[in-house]
């Protein structure tokens, strides 16, 4: 039965504070605080550059030109779009004739292209960071390796966070036996030496980048789960959850729409560290030969290849090592900065 409500003229608030407070969202505050931390900002810039490198790898390094005018035909972006005429075309040795034009990426070497005449060369004008034992360009391999490292890092950490959020949310919201089971599960996971567990799982799976992502995801969720569980235990007692239940909302909606957004800030911090951890683990796996299958270039695999020449070919070790170091450090700096920025006690 719909009863009509009449507006009560009486009892209206004085209009003096009609103006809302300045709309400063939570993320606005976090950003303001984050900016104060110079190291974190540097880290963020480094990550932005790395993301750019990963996304635009075909424009930075590779055989295939960005622009090609051959005869009367113009090909735009053969590096990202494949053309029927250009299948099996030998780009490296092709020279532009009269009226023709080719724009190559700044590092005109594909990561897999070997040149046995120029193997194990130090940095030169052609090969800025030298070549490896098959004459492949190290810089080109590192640029393409950024894609692998970043995607493994983000997907593995994302998967871990997703699993952690679901398990942690259910455990914290329902508590009781659900919590018991989840906690035991977490403890079992924590009992394993993670790296050995990952190696064991990888050994059973066909080598592929996706399997590495999945294995890192299903072994790395415990931290996020415990964090989300803790937040949920705290938030489930809050009035707005009772209020949401009193409105008649479903539990699933309360958990994921109402409580979860309130529990996410610490998860972002863990996620940042998680990406760094996943990149490091992937490098370690590739170094041990369990990682991304060759010839796909990954930073760990580059290090692995360089083992035999470490005595003289310093460029094979230094640059990929530095790439891993810088990336992981950048993620950790951003994570630290984010944690401090989200902590209201640090706010000034």
């Amino acid at each position, binding site marked *: 039965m*719909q*009863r009509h*409500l009449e507006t*009560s003229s009486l009892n209206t608030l004085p209009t003096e504070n009609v103006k809302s*407070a300045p709309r400063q969202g939570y993320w606005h505050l976090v950003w303001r605080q984050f900016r104060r931390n110079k190291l974190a900002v540097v880290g963020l810039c480094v990550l932005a550059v790395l993301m750019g490198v990963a996304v635009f790898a075909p424009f930075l390094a590779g055989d295939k030109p960005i622009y090609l005018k051959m005869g009367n035909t113009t090909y735009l972006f053969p590096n990202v779009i494949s053309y029927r005429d250009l299948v099996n075309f030998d780009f490296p040795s092709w020279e532009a004739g009269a009226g023709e034009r080719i724009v190559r990426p700044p590092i005109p070497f594909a990561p897999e292209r070997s040149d046995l005449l120029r193997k194990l060369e130090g940095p030169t004008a052609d090969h800025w960071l030298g070549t490896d034992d098959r004459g492949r360009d190290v810089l080109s391999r590192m640029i393409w390796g950024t894609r692998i490292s970043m995607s493994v890092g983000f997907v593995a950490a994302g998967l871990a966070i997703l699993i952690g959020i679901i398990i942690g949310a259910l455990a914290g919201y329902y508590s009781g036996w659900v919590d018991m089971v989840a906690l035991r599960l977490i403890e079992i996971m924590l009992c394993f030496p993670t790296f050995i567990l990952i190696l064991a799982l990888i050994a059973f799976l066909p080598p592929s980048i996706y399997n590495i992502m999945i294995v890192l995801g299903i072994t790395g969720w415990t931290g996020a789960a415990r964090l989300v569980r803790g937040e949920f235990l705290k938030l489930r007692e809050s009035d*707005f959850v009772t*209020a949401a239940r*009193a*409105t*008649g909302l479903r539990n699933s909606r309360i958990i994921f729409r109402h409580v979860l957004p309130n529990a996410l800030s610490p998860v972002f911090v863990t996620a940042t560290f998680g990406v760094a951890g996943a990149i490091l683990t992937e490098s370690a796996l590739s170094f041990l030969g369990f990682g991304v299958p060759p010839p796909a270039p990954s930073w760990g695999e580059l290090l692995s290849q360089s083992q035999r020449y470490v005595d003289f070919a310093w460029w094979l070790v230094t640059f990929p090592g530095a790439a891993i170091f810088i990336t992981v450090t950048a993620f950790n700096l951003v994570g630290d900065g984010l944690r401090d920025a989200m902590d209201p006690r640090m706010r000034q």
Partner: protein
Amino acid sequence: MTATNEIVLAVRNLQTHFFTDAGVARAVDDVSFEIRAGQTLALVGESGCGKSMSALSILRLVPSPPGRIVAGEIEFKGRDLLKFSEEEMRQIRGDDISMIFQEPMTSLNPVFRVGAQISAAIRLHRNVSEEEARRQAIELLAKVGIPAPEERVDDYPHQMSGGMRQRAMIAMALSCDPMLLIADEPSTALDVTIQAQILALLRDLQRDTGMAILLITHDLGVVAENADEVAVMYAGQIVERAPVKELFANPQHPYTLGLFKSLPRLSKKGEKLASIPGTVPNATHFPTGCRFRMRCPYAEQVPSEQDPPLVETTSGHTVKCWLYDKDFMDSTQRPVGLPDKEDAFK
């Protein structure tokens, strides 16, 4: 408008217990009351006497574990809510029965805009479009007296003052035209002037909609101004029930009397405030017999094992006390009722 004498909600012999490590806490123990359409029943009592748990029991929102409704009936529109499935219960919540809470600061979700929360509540129970729900949300905000509702609808809770948030909560509670509104200390967390505004608002809205209100409070001043009927709770039980005027004119239970005597009065300026001796018994270890026995200045020769009976002294006025039980008082050769005792509750 609904007939004013129709009983909207009848709670009978409700028992809600908490099963804790320290033992079974009988938070709500054999509580019965009715609320009629267009009327306000005030549930009064001190902290921890079970008033909030009675209210949460009606919506079946008692935190579980450790809490559980172990017995009783909650009859709403002729059907027992305790027999409802969780799904049926969800449809009642926020639609037929809604609730507002003590802390307006925390009972709105901090990460969503106020308007979004209200329209979500509308769309949960009514099949209306997003725009229509938003339009209704603005209308509701206007109705509860929030100035510039078209702007305020997009505020986050932290951009509103406590009084405004409570108004927004009320708007949300009213969004589906509930037949019963449970107001759990709606004004306690607000300062006195805002308190009066909020209560006046609830009165106006009740007059317009004819909804029943279950008002939970520990403030007898609030009761006097807002309730039609009062139920006084002590240690999980209702010890006295009467129409508001009758209760204030003629309090019968010693506990009720103690509450009235401990109110500060302007006419007695300079005197020491009266108080009820002792403290509320622990809910896991209530004394046998009358639970007020240990603190009651009139408790002479009352049975220590048996619960006091519920006696209807005048029409509509019931009291749970041995002193009004004719058979018992006759057996001890005393007159029925409170004896004259000037020094009680000093």
